[in-house]
C-alpha cells in the first residue's frame, strides 16, 4: 500500500518537474449537457470579422455546427426566433480579478497580491480563487463566458494567471478552461516600486524594476540549463546500458516553483501578460523579452499604447485596454479615448477591451462602443463586425484559446450570446448566454440566473 503510493507520488513529481506546464491541479470542467439549439434570423457577428444579417446559428453537443442562412434544424432542436436580435461569440475578459479580489471586499477576500516579495512567479492566482464570488454571476449577465484571472500588480512578477469558463462550481478546477495555457502576470512602473520602495526594499525605482526582472530571468536560465542537462543525460543513459551509472549524477536538480514558471515562459508554454502603462516602458519590456527569448502576449492597461501602435502590431503583441480611464496616477496621465481605435488601426493589430474591474467586466460591450464612437469622430470607422473582435477573438488569441472559442465557427465551443439589439449601446442587454451549448443565463427567467452561495439568505437581497 505505502509502496504503491510512494511510486505514484514519485512518478508524478518527475513528470511535473520536467515540464512547467504539467498540471497537478487539472481541470475537471465538464460542459453541461444540452440538446441542439437553432438561433434563427439574427444579425450575427461571427468574431472572424464578418457580419451576417438574417442568419442562423446552430449548436449541438456543445459545439457550433452551423452558421449561415436558412439552416435546417435537427428534429429535437430548440428553435429560438432571434428576429431583431444580435448574436455574438461569448465575451472574454483577458484581465479579471474575480475570485481573487471577491465581493464583498473584506480583508479575508484580499487574495490577489502576494506583496511580500517583488518576484513571485511561484504563486498561482487559481489557488486564491473563491468560486462563490457573486461577481461571476453579474459578469455572466454581461455576456462573459470566459476570463483570465490574474494576480494583482504589486509585484514585478506576480505569478501565474488562469483561464476559466464562467460557470459556477464548487471548485476552481471545475471552472478551469480545459487545455488553456497559463498566463504570467508581470508589472511595470509605479506599483512595484511604490509597494517595495515604501518598505525600504528593492525595487524603489524604475531602473530597480528592470534589474529585478533581469535577475529573475538570469536565475531561471541557469535553472533551465541544469534541467535541460539532466533531461539530456536521462535520454543518453536510456540509450546506453543500465546498471553501472553512478548514483547521484542522475538525481534531478532541486525543483523551484518560481523558476519553473519562468522556464515555462522562456519555452513559450506560458503566456506573458504585462501591466504596463507608458509607451517607453512597454518598449523596454519588448527588449527584455528579446533578451531572454520570450514573447509578450499582451500589454494590459497600456494607456499610451497608441504612441507605439505600429510596433505592437509589427511584433504581434496585443494591447488590452480600457476605453477611457486616465489620470489616477502619473503613468496613466496620457490616456485618450481613441486609444483602442488607434491600436486597432495598423495591419495585424490586436486590440482588446479588458476590464480589471468587477463592474467593467459586466459591460465590455459598452466600453467597446465608446471607443468605436471616438474612433469614428476622427475618421477611423470601425464596424461592429470588427469591434466585436476586441472582446472575443482577440482576447482568445492572447490567451491561447482561439482554436477553441472566441468566434462562431463550425467546431468551436458553442459560447454564444443573444443580445436584444446591437451590443454597442448603453441599452444593450445580453438576453441569453450559452456556454458550451448550454443555456446558462436567461434575462427573462430568474431560474436561469445563477446566484452564488454567498447571496442565499441575505435578507436585503431577496
Amino acid at each position, binding site marked *: 500500500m505505502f509502496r504503491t503510493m510512494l511510486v505514484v507520488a514519485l512518478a508524478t513529481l518527475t513528470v511535473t518537474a520536467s515540464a512547467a506546464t504539467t498540471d497537478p491541479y487539472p481541470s475537471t470542467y465538464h460542459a453541461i449537457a444540452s440538446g441542439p439549439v437553432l438561433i434563427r434570423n439574427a444579425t450575427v457577428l461571427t468574431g472572424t470579422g464578418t457580419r451576417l444579417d438574417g442568419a442562423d446559428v446552430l449548436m449541438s453537443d456543445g459545439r457550433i455546427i452551423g452558421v449561415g442562412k436558412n439552416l435546417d434544424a435537427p428534429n429535437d432542436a430548440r428553435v429560438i426566433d432571434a428576429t431583431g436580435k444580435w448574436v455574438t461569440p461569448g465575451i472574454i475578459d483577458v484581465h479579471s480579478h474575480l475570485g481573487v479580489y471577491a*465581493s*464583498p*471586499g*473584506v480583508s479575508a477576500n484580499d487574495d490577489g497580491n502576494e506583496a511580500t516579495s517583488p518576484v513571485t512567479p511561484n504563486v498561482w492566482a487559481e489557488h486564491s480563487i473563491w468560486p462563490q464570488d*457573486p*461577481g461571476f454571476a*453579474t459578469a455572466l449577465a454581461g455576456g462573459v463566458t470566459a476570463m483570465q484571472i490574474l494576480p494583482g500588480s504589486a509585484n514585478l512578477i506576480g505569478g501565474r494567471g488562469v483561464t476559466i469558463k464562467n460557470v459556477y462550481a464548487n471548485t476552481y478546477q471545475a471552472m478551469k478552461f480545459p487545455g488553456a495555457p497559463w498566463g504570467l502576470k508581470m508589472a511595470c512602473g*509605479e506599483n512595484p516600486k511604490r509597494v517595495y520602495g515604501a518598505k525600504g526594499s528593492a525595487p524603489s525605482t524604475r531602473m530597480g524594476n528592470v534589474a529585478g526582472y533581469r535577475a529573475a530571468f538570469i536565475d531561471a536560465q541557469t535553472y533551465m540549463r541544469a534541467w535541460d542537462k539532466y533531461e539530456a543525460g536521462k535520454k543518453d543513459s536510456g540509450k546506453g546500458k543500465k546498471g553501472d551509472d553512478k548514483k547521484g549524477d542522475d538525481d534531478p536538480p532541486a525543483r523551484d516553483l518560481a523558476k519553473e514558471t519562468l522556464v515555462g515562459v522562456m519555452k513559450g508554454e506560458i503566456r506573458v501578460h504585462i501591466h504596463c502603462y507608458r509607451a517607453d516602458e512597454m518598449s523596454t519590456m519588448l527588449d527584455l523579452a528579446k533578451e531572454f527569448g520570450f514573447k509578450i502576449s499582451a500589454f494590459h492597461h497600456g494607456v499610451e499604447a*497608441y*504612441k507605439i501602435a505600429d510596433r505592437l502590431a509589427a511584433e504581434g503583441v496585443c494591447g488590452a485596454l480600457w476605453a*477611457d*480611464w*486616465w*489620470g*489616477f*496616477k*502619473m503613468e496613466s*496621465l*496620457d*490616456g*485618450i*479615448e*481613441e486609444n483602442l481605435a*488607434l491600436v486597432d488601426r495598423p495591419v495585424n493589430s490586436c486590440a482588446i477591451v479588458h476590464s480589471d*474591474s*468587477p*463592474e467593467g467586466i*459586466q*459591460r465590455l460591450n*459598452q466600453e467597446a*462602443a*465608446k471607443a*468605436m*464612437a*471616438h474612433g469614428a*469622430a*476622427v475618421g477611423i470607422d470601425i464596424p461592429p463586425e470588427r469591434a466585436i473582435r476586441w472582446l472575443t477573438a482577440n482576447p482568445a488569441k492572447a490567451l491561447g484559446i482561439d482554436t477553441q472559442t472566441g468566434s462562431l465557427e463550425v467546431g468551436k465551443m458553442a459560447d454564444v450570446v443573444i443580445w436584444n439589439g446591437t451590443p*454597442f*449601446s*448603453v*441599452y*444593450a*442587454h445580453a438576453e441569453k448566454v450559452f456556454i458550451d451549448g448550454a443555456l446558462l443565463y436567461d434575462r427573462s427567467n430568474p431560474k436561469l440566473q445563477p446566484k452564488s452561495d*454567498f*447571496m442565499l439568505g*441575505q435578507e*436585503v*437581497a431577496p
Partner: protein
Amino acid sequence: MKQLALSLLLLTGAASAQDVLIRHATVHTAGVRGTLKNADVLVQGGIIRAVGPGLLVPPGVPVVEAGGKPLSPGLFAGLGDIGLEEVSGEDSTVDGAQSFGGNGLAPQMRPEFDVTVAFNPHSMLIPVARMDGLTFSALAANPTGGGSLVAGQGGVVRLDGDYANPLGGRQLYVSLGSSADSLGGKSRAAQFMLLDQALREARGLTPYGSPYALLTPAGRETLAKYLLGGRVLFNVDRAADIHQVLLFARRNGLRPIIVSGAEAWVVAKELAAANVPVILDSLQNLPSSFDAIGSRLDNAALLHKAGVRVAFTQFEFASHNARKVRQEAGNAVANGLPWEAGLAGLTSVPANALGVGDKVGRIEPGLIADLVLWTGDPLEVTTLATQVWMAGKPMPMRSRQTQLRDRYLQAPDALPRAYSH
C-alpha cells in the same frame, strides 16, 4: 491679430460674445416642458431668454443650426475633485481632504474645512469633463485617514474656467458606515455618538475649553449653520444606516441628501416621505461590502417609482472620468428608469438638491445658458457632444486629450512628435 478681433466684432454686430440662437433642436429642457421637437433657444448676455418654436432672431445674434439634434442643459459631473486634484495618486496634487490627524496626532473633526477655496479653474481635468458635456460639478470634501467622518464642506462649481466660483452655498459632507470605520471609533454606533456630540457643541451645550470638545469655535459656527437648514450629504449604503440618518436628521432639523445609497431602494418609501434625494452610482450592483449586500441595478428605478429624486455620481474615478455619469444614467434607463428621469438625474435633480436649481440644470428662461448639442441621445454611450456653450459662449472643444490624440493621429514626420503642436 488686432484685425482679426475687429472683423469678429463686425460679424457679430452689437451682440455680446454670450448671445446665440440655437435653431431647430430637439430641446430636452429637463423641466416641466419636457422635450420640445424642432424648437429654438435664444440666449442673450449669457442667459436663456426664450425657448420655443420659430423664435425671431434679434439683430446681430449669431444663429446655430442644430438640424434636429438634441440640445440638453449642461450636465452634472457628479461629486468629485475636479479642480481639486490633478493626479489622484500624487498627494501633492490633491486638495479634497484634510488630514490634520496624521503623524500620530488624533483625527480632527473640522467641519469648517471648505474645499471650494482650493478650487483651481485651470485644472487640466476641466476641459476633459466639459468636452463630454459636463458643465457643473459638486466639489466634495472627502473623508480620509487622519480626517474625520465629518469631512468638511464643498460647493457647486461651473466648469467654465472662471474664478467666480462656487455657485450658491456650501454643503456639509459626512461619511458613515463601514467605509468610515477608521474615522469613527470602529463602530457605526460610535459614529452617531460623535455626530450627536458635535451637534450638542454647535448648539452651545458644551463650554468652550471643555476637555470633551470635538470642535474648534469655527467648527461650531459652521455646524450651527447646518442646523438652520444647509444641505448635509451623508455617504451611507446600508438600509438600516439610511433609516438612522433620516431619524437623526429629523431629530436635529437637518436637510439630508443620501450619497451612494446602495440599499436605498429598501427604504424608498421613507426617503420619499422625508423628501430626501439620493445621489447614487447606478452601476453599483455587487455586494462590495457588508453595507451593500442589497445592491442592485434597478436601485434608481425603484427609488424613482417610489417618488424619490435620483441623481448620478460615481466614486471610483469620479474626477478624471467624471464623464462616465452619462453612462450611468443610460444604464439606469436600461434597467427601468424612465428616460426623462435619467436626464433629470444629470441636470435638474442634482441642481435643485444642491441649491443651484435657479441657475443651472434646465433649459428655461432666466437660467444660465450652459448648453450642450449632441450627436444623438445624450444618455447613449456612442453619442458625443458636438458643441458646449457656457453662459452662451461656445467653449473650445479641445482638451489635453484631444491634443495628444491629434499629435499621434498623424503619421510621424521627420522631426520628433515633440515638434508637432
